[in-house]
């Protein structure tokens, strides 16, 4: 078991190095000199050269990459060009906000997908509604869904705050109240995807003999559905949860921007808008590494849960 984990991890290292190097080179090469970007269009060549020398942008790219990676490994991501604050200090509190949002959204999506598709009651009335909700989740972009929710629940009914974020220190109730709309917005897409995966598997499991046997023994319909069929149909959802954790960052960028949440996605957008190269680079790198790690975890979890594929 341990060898499998170690092997997967070792395999992920070249992937991470390739991706981060690609990202680093393309960002620095195509963006041109970060100094020129910071100083704007009217900067004199001398000023650009001076700034290049000061930050070491004039050294060969591979030296800069190596330098960046070794400092990053020590937790030093440089300083923000706009605020002069350390990048690590700027990013750290944002990560927690994004992680909480992402985790809640994924849990909500998974639970909703599994429960709505397992419920044995009213398949003919509830079923089409669930399918319609799935389609809406998959095809309506986050920003549209979020704005519609704000329009109904904040502007119309006045039940929930429209935007903003409240830290835990100001009270759990206030915090959760601000989280409801963003979490629902972000989870809709995954609710759709998880539902499609789970529904297909569940329909398959339902036809199997042990489920029919359980039903024939006179066990109640809901008990058969939740205790016998559900555990056997849930494995693909678990895999999908792991695989989508990385992709979730895209949705988080839009959701955080819409709801003005101080997360990593909004920081990325604002760093792009202000040409803040070190922050942009650090976040992009972090997302890449995070995605690779999450896929790795999903891989390992799947191997642990399913002994059949442990052969290799």
């Amino acid at each position, binding site marked *: 078991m341990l060898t499998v984990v170690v092997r997967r991890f070792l395999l992920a290292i070249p992937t991470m190095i390739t991706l981060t190097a690609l990202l680093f080179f393309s960002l620095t090469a195509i963006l041109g000199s970060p100094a020129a970007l910071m100083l704007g269009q009217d900067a004199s060549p001398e000023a650009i050269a001076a700034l290049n020398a000061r930050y070491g942008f004039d050294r060969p790219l591979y030296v800069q990459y190596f330098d960046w990676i070794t400092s990053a490994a020590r937790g030093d991501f440089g300083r923000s060009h706009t605020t002069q604050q350390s990048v690590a200090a700027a990013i750290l509190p944002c990560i927690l906000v994004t992680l909480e949002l992402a985790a809640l959204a994924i849990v909500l999506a998974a639970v909703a997908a599994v429960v709505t598709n397992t419920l044995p009651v009213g398949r003919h009335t509830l079923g089409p509604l669930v399918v319609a909700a799935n389609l809406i989740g998959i095809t309506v*972009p986050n920003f549209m869904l979020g704005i519609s929710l704000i329009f109904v629940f904040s502007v119309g009914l006045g039940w929930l705050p429209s935007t903003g974020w409240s830290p835990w220190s100001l009270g759990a109730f206030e915090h959760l109240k601000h989280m409801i709309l963003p979490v629902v917005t972000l989870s809709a897409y995954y609710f759709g995807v998880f539902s499609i995966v789970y529904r297909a598997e569940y329909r398959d499991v339902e036809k199997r003999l042990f489920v029919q046997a359980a039903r024939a023994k006179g066990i109640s319909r809901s008990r058969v559905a939740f205790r016998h069929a559900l555990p056997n149909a849930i494995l693909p959802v678990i895999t999908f949860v792991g695989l989508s954790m990385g992709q979730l960052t895209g949705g988080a*960028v839009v959701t955080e921007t819409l709801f003005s949440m101080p997360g990593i996605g909004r920081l990325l957008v604002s760093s792009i808008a202000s040409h803040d190269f070190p922050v942009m680079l650090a976040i992009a790198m972090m997302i890449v590494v995070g995605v690779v790690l999450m896929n790795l975890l999903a891989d390992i979890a799947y191997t642990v849960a399913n002994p059949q594929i442990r052969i290799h």
Partner: protein
Amino acid sequence: MFTPRRIVGFALIGLILACALLAHWIAPYDPLRSSVAMLSPASAAHFLGTDELGRDVLSRVIYGARTSLAIGSGAALVAMLIGAPVGLMAGYFGGRLDIVTVMLIDLFVALPGLVLALVITVMVGPSLQNLALVLGFVMWPSVARLIRGQVLPIREATFVEAARAAGGSPAWIISQHIWPNTMRVVAAQFAVSVSFAIFTSSSLSFLGLGIPPPTPDWGGMVRAGYDFLAVNPLLSLGPGTAVGLTVLGFYLVGSSVE
């Protein structure tokens, strides 16, 4: 052939296409002409009201179909042009070429499309051509992976073996025997790619990285209208619904083929 999903999907695509092609005749006003009637609510003269510059929102939504369809189909085309040859060759020749290609594909598929598009768009600057190129570049690995998977069983089919025995060159076999047999799936993937491209490009526009104003663009309109949600919600919800329906149309058509 005509499942309800496909009928609805094609109907939606037809509607959007009609808007894009006939915008000049359908739209009641010039989408770029501002007037003093700023932020007026929905009325008989302006079905969706007017925006902060007094432009007719309905006309802008209708003209916005052009932008979205251009980016969506352009990006899907780029993804096909890169992904199809790569997938066909990796699947047909196999061996080392296949291993390297699959590694490359796995590398890219794992990355979040929106974040990748966001970063590249910053580098190259937002314009219609650039957005189509960037989104095509983001999507090609999934196209290549799908086509490669389709080629693998076809490669082993008897008719391909016969073609090989007849002395056919790889280029001839791929173009005459393999490519036509992947068309069904390729067409479906094209529709799915269009829906993903429109979904993502409108999200980029919403984040302020889309087609620069004043060109009517749905994502950008939603963003601009968001500030006036309490005054006239249709400013945001109108173009937002247009995005949703377009993505839905292409998704329904694309996902109806397995």
